[in-house]
């Protein structure tokens, strides 16, 4: 099962490599990884999506918690949560296909953020599944480049991940 694990991490040199190293060292899988500073400049927030059974995910959270630089760990998928990913996707677009890209982008609430006579670049924000669906809707034939940010997530309601 897919899990979104959020980690508050000391904003120290080398802290990220400890997390990434842990995943490869213990043969845990990483589907996506995002990391950036938070409002508290001493902390970074890292979000990792991974696939594993309950036993593996339990080990992942426990092993993450053991890292001295890790301040807090939460598996967002255990509760109600919102996930978002940003994608920028560049199409070879000419003739009738230009209109189709525009239409589909509108349906998915994407924006066209760059245009040339032969290309369209679309920005789309949503769950990973929505981004997948957009790619599928337009077919892979005319895609020139795909850039995805990886998943970020936040718990619904009053729950927060902070110190």
């Amino acid at each position, binding site marked *: 099962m897919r899990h979104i694990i959020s980690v508050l991490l*000391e904003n120290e*040199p*080398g802290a990220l*490599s*400890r997390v990434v*190293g842990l995943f490869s*060292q213990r043969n845990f899988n990483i589907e996506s990884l995002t990391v950036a500073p938070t409002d508290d400049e001493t902390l970074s927030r890292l979000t990792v999506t991974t696939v594993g059974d309950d*036993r593996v995910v*339990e*080990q992942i959270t*426990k*092993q993450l*918690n*053991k890292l*001295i*630089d*890790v*301040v807090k760990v939460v598996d967002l998928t255990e509760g109600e949560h919102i996930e978002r990913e940003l994608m920028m996707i560049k199409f070879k677009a000419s003739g009738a296909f230009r209109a189709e890209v525009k239409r589909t982008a509108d349906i998915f609430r994407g924006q066209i953020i760059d245009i040339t006579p032969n290309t369209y670049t679309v920005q789309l924000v949503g769950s990973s599944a929505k981004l997948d669906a957009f790619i599928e809707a337009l077919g892979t034939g005319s895609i020139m480049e795909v850039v995805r940010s990886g998943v970020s997530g936040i718990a619904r309601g009053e729950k927060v991940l902070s*110190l």
Partner: protein
Amino acid sequence: MELLSGGEMVVRALRDQGVKYIYGYPGGALLHVYDAIFRQDEVEHILVRHEQAATHMADAYARATGKAGVALVTSGPGATNAVTGIATAYMDSIPMVVITGQVPSHLIGEDAFQETDMIGISRPIVKHNFSVRHAEDIPEIIRKAFHIAETGRPGPVVIDIPKDMTNPTDRFPYVFPKHVKLRSYNPVTKGHSGQIKKAFDLLMSAKRPVIYAGGGVIMGEASEELTELAQALNYPVTNTLMGLGGYPGTDRQFVGMLGMHGSYEANMVMHHSDLILAIGARFDDRITNGVDKFCPTAKIIHIDVDPASISKTIRADVPIVGPAKAVLEEMLQLLKSSNKLPDAEAVKTWWAQIDEWRQRHGGRFRTDDSEKMKPQQVIEMLSKVTGGDAYICSDVGQHQMFAAQYYKFNKPNRWINSGGLGTMGFGLPAAMGVKMNFPDADVACVTGEGSIQMNIQELSTCSQYNIPVKIICLNNGSLGMVRQWQDMNYESRHSQSYMNSLPDFIKLAEAYGHVGIKVDKYSDLEAAMVKAFAMKDRLVFMDITVDPHEHVYPMQVPRGSMRDMWLSKTERT
């Protein structure tokens, strides 16, 4: 306030931490620190002949005392030579602080002379590592390093210090912090009382219980509590390789070591038990054998200070996160205050079964008609000559298993071996580290002719500092454990498991200024060993010729259950 350079702060902070010995080897990146060592006499530096030995000496000191040992090595090759020792300590959860030199900050990343990314290299084999970026942080970093190394589940910590951080002309106010606080590191100090109560109730209703205790009992200083609880309950106790000595080895309730080379009765007790009380043990592959067949009828209570060790390989029915000592103390309190008692009738029946297993196969080796000495006989003699009270520092291989099986450890911290990583070359430096700190104790290195050659250069260090350990070398002329596996699984094709051109160990010992004794016949063994241990101030190298055909038994059948064992070359359970 006193102004000190970074180099001086390293040495002063170690002193303030209570460090007596640093084991190390100098080099370019550390010269400022070595100069600071020269200009004081409170912390003594022991110069090894290879950095690996420095880490093993520090590690063994920690195994014998529970306090973190200290190694000091230079950048580049000094640091990489220490890697095996760091990994050894990491696998066995041993507290250690390793200070590595680094090239000056402005050269980092430029492939400078003797540069290596020690933070990166050591990351998967340390509990934590620090890179010094401001010289004035050195005292606090050292304080934190010891705190992290020694608390919770212990482990090695590396401090990487670029040379410019120790510059003698840059001086800073020196303050050694009394306490350190890390917001992201708060190891538990007691177990969850509700869980302990639940475990206690299970314990009281068990019909076929067993206590399975590991290295966590030794490092967690819970040996007394374990012994008291086990004896109050009259339950059988088995120790892991790392846990030997955590429960008295000569006690009736002790069924021996468990696992791959565990005793017949220990493995039978585990397999047939209905309740396993696991304390400071981690159900590793050398214990469980095939996990899908592991102890099918047992419920499991698992006490460990590291939550990640619980339910990692075998799911616990009652997990208890906490230090072994505090949790066992709480269980003992419950035992005294509650009116529940163990099911004495069931336990009596259980003991009758255990005694029957003991008689059926008491784990004895057989002496055959040949003149050849059995390695087990040597260990039994060692146990006899030292009264079971020596520090036994082992290398890795058959001799290690024989020592674990046949030396009867009645006290914790006496059995010093590389259990997790299985590091050949560990034994001699380990014995040295122990002997330096316990000069009046008998300290033996049990080794083989293969392992001893992996750090034999340390015979020179022993001369320089007069470290009179006794080396008990079980010489079978082959890499015995490899050969055993080749006998059992590769139709005796002994690929690369024998060595010719072995040195004359007696002459070698003498060349370093030590005493060598060769023993070929069992009838000479006792007298020779008594003589060796009587030479209190001399290192004695006993080169003892043993039967090369001997195998370590019992041996679990791969991927079987715990009770599936070879008992000899021809018998199987």
